[in-house]
C-alpha cells in the first residue's frame, strides 16, 4: 500500500488558447521519486501539461500543486527543460550555466562544471552553444535544468535529435536521479528508450489523460502502426 503523499497534484486543469482547449479537465496525482513518461500524438496536450506544471502556462480553470505550493512558489524545486534549448547561442556552455547559476544564487563555477561533466560534456569547451551539435545542445540544456539540484524535473522531448547511444546515456543519468529521490516527468515520442527505466507511462489524447500504465506494452495503441 502506498502511503506517500503525492508531490504533484493536477486538479481539473483546463487550458484554453482562444477557442482551442489544449487541456480539457486534467486531473491526476503523481508520487515523488518516480519516473513518469507522458506520451501521445502531436497536439494531445503533453507540452501544455508540462508547461502548466512548470508555471509557464496558467490554467484557465483548475489548479496545479507542486509539493503543496503553486508552481511559482515551488520554482526552486522545479527544473525545466523545453524543446528549444533555453540557452544563449552566443555564449559557451560554462558561460550560460554561470549566468543561470546566478539566478539561483549558486556561487562559483564548481556546480556548473559538475553538471556539465554529469551530462557527458567538457566544461572547458569554449565553443559557443550555437556551434554545438543538436545532441550536445540537448545535453547542455539538461545540465541547465539540473543545475540547482531540483526535486522535480520536467523535460520536454529531451531525446529529440539525439543519437541512440547518447540518448541511452541520458536515460541512465535520469534513472540515477530518480533512484536518488528525484521525481521526473518526460514528454517524448521515443517511449521505447524509456522502457525499463520509467515507472509509469501516461497516455494523453485530446487534452486528457486517457490511460496510465506501468508497462509500455499494456497500452492498447502501443506499438503504434508504422
Amino acid at each position, binding site marked *: 500500500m502506498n502511503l506517500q503523499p503525492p508531490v504533484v497534484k493536477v486538479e481539473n486543469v483546463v487550458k484554453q488558447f482562444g477557442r482551442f482547449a489544449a487541456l480539457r479537465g486534467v486531473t491526476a496525482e503523481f508520487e515523488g521519486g518516480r519516473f513518469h513518461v507522458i506520451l501521445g500524438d502531436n497536439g494531445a496536450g503533453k507540452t501544455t501539461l508540462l508547461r502548466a506544471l*512548470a508555471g*509557464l502556462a496558467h490554467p484557465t480553470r483548475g489548479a496545479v500543486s507542486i509539493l503543496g505550493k503553486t508552481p511559482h512558489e515551488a*520554482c526552486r524545486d522545479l527544473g525545466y527543460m523545453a524543446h528549444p*534549448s533555453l*540557452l544563449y*547561442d552566443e*555564449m559557451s556552455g560554462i558561460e550560460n550555466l554561470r*549566468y543561470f547559476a546566478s539566478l539561483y544564487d549558486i556561487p562559483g563555477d564548481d556546480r556548473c562544471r559538475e553538471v556539465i561533466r554529469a551530462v557527458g560534456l567538457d566544461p572547458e569547451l569554449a565553443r559557443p552553444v550555437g556551434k554545438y551539435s543538436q545532441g550536445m545542445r540537448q545535453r547542455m540544456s539538461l545540465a541547465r535544468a539540473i543545475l540547482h539540484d531540483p526535486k522535480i524535473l520536467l523535460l520536454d522531448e529531451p531525446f529529440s535529435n539525439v543519437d541512440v547511444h547518447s540518448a541511452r546515456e541520458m536515460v541512465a543519468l535520469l534513472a540515477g536521479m530518480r533512484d536518488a529521490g528525484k521525481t521526473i516527468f518526460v514528454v517524448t515520442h521515443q517511449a521505447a528508450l524509456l522502457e525499463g527505466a520509467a515507472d509509469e507511462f501516461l497516455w494523453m489524447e485530446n487534452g486528457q489523460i486517457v490511460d496510465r500504465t506501468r508497462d509500455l506494452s499494456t497500452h492498447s495503441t502501443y506499438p503504434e502502426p508504422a
Partner: protein
Amino acid sequence: MNLFWSIMLATLAKDIRLEWRSKDALNAMLFFSLLVVVIFVFSFDPLAEESRHIVGGLVWVAFLFAAVVALNQTWARELRNQVLDAYRVSPAPATALFVAKVLGNFLFVSVLEALMTPLFVIFYNLHVLGPAWQLIPVALLGTWALVVNGTFFAAMSLRTRSRELMLPLLLFPVSIPAVLGMVAATTSILTGENPAHFYIVLLLTYDVVFTTACIGLFDTVLQAE
C-alpha cells in the same frame, strides 16, 4: 536586496557580453543615425542660426528612432531558444531583469549619442549660446525616459505577431511629453533664449513616474502568456 543586485549585475554583464559579440544593436543604431544626419543635412542645409532652432528636434528624433532598434534587439535575444522561459521558471525577481535591461539599453543608447553628437555639431555647424553643461542632464534624463518606456513596451509587445511595428506604436505616443521636454530643453540651451530648468524638472518628473510604473507592472508583463 543582495540577490537582486547580483542577478541584476549578472544579467547586465551577460547583455553587454552578448552585444559586444554580436554588435547587432550598436551597428544598426549607428548606421541608422548616420543616415538620418546625412539625409537631414542634404535636405535642409541650414545656416548656423537656423540649426540652433531645429537641431534639438532632429537629434532627439534620430535618437528615438535609433533607440527603437536597440530596444527590439534586447528582447529578441531572449526569445531565441525561448531563453526567457528559463528566467520565468527561476526564483529571480522580474524587476532585476527589467532594471538590467534598462541599464543595458541606457548604456548602448548613450554610446550612440556620444558617437553621434560630434557629427551633429560638425554637420550643423553648432555653437551653444546657453549653458552647455545643462545638455548633460537633459541627455541623461531624456535617454532614460526613452529606454525605460521602450524596454517596458518592447517586453509588452514581445508576444505579438508584428512586435517590431508594435513597439513604436506603443512607445511614441507615451513618449510625446518626454520628447517635447527634451527638444524644448535642447533648443533653449542651444539658442540661449530661455532657461531650460522647467524642462529638466519636467523630464525628471516624467522619469520618476514612468520608472516607478514600469517597475511595478513588469512582473505582470513577464509572466503573461
